[in-house]
């Protein structure tokens, strides 16, 4: 497997998961953010051009839940 390029986001799963120590409420908020962003990307998720933005937005909006 090739090394990640500088443009690559972290692994696709990373932004979706909550910390194991996160309270349930925060985990629920993170999941809601994930669902919401996936809804926004419903026609474009999986397209290579959208990949970095999709994951960056999930991570950014989940960080705002704190």
């Amino acid at each position, binding site marked *: 497997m090739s090394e990640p390029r500088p443009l*690559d986001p972290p692994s696709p799963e990373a932004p979706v998961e909550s910390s194991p120590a996160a309270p349930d409420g925060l985990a629920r908020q993170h999941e809601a953010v994930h669902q919401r962003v996936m809804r*926004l990307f419903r*026609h474009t998720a999986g*397209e290579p*051009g*959208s990949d970095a933005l999709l994951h960056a*937005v999930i991570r950014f909006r989940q960080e705002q839940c704190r």
Partner: protein
Amino acid sequence: MSRPSLAELTGQIRQLPAMPLIALEVIRSLQHSDVDVEGLARRIAQDQAIAARVLRVANSPFYGLQKRVASIHDAIVVLGLAAVRSLVLAASMLTCLPGGSARGFSRDAFWRHGLGTALAAQALARVLQRPAEPVFIAGLLHDIGRLAMVSLYPEPYAAMQDQAVREDLPPSLLEAGHFGFDHAEAGASLATLWNFPPAIADAIGRHHTPGECPPGSLAGIIHYADAIARALELDGEPDGQVPHLDQATIDGLGVSWEQLNGVLEDTASRFESCRLMLG
């Protein structure tokens, strides 16, 4: 209805309220490096509605100035000519394109998205070390063709919007079928009619098809900024969608993961202060 041609749409633009003279002068000044700044400041100040809007933004928390900006001349000194020209153009567009009242179209959401795209484009421009002024203007006005279509053809536009909702499709995919042209083409025609610099007219015309442009083009920046603004839901629409992103264009911009995160933060944090421009 019989489908209007792009030329008919451009001709009918004259039915809309005229663009303020100061806006036309600002557009002209974009193409010249030797601008009479004092004269421009005096003429901006003469249009009270526009001057008031500019000063409201200049005095907003976004700029964080210690001293109140009381005149357009002061605003140019403190914020710079580029920022003031962008503000004047934004204020002028809000005045001259009323947006009509088509079903399913929100003027507020339209301008929120334009502003969000402008701010995302500026954040990208900082990362890419590109001039901030043309990207802001192109971002703000990238969908202006849609506003013209709504203003001139409210019923057909509403019918198209109904179909888009019913079939969960982006309206931009249906425009050509309903009108014979899409909002990007309409916007480029308007920008050309109003003598915008060719690079801005081109970016407006190709923001959904930037693959036709060289890597790193202004159209490519607006293409990415449009999607960023949608993804952050700056328009406040209840069920928005992020448009298709052209991979070669995104790769050509070369924005790293860290830079992209900074662009999102920068765009979202500036948006609330700059919303004053719209109200």
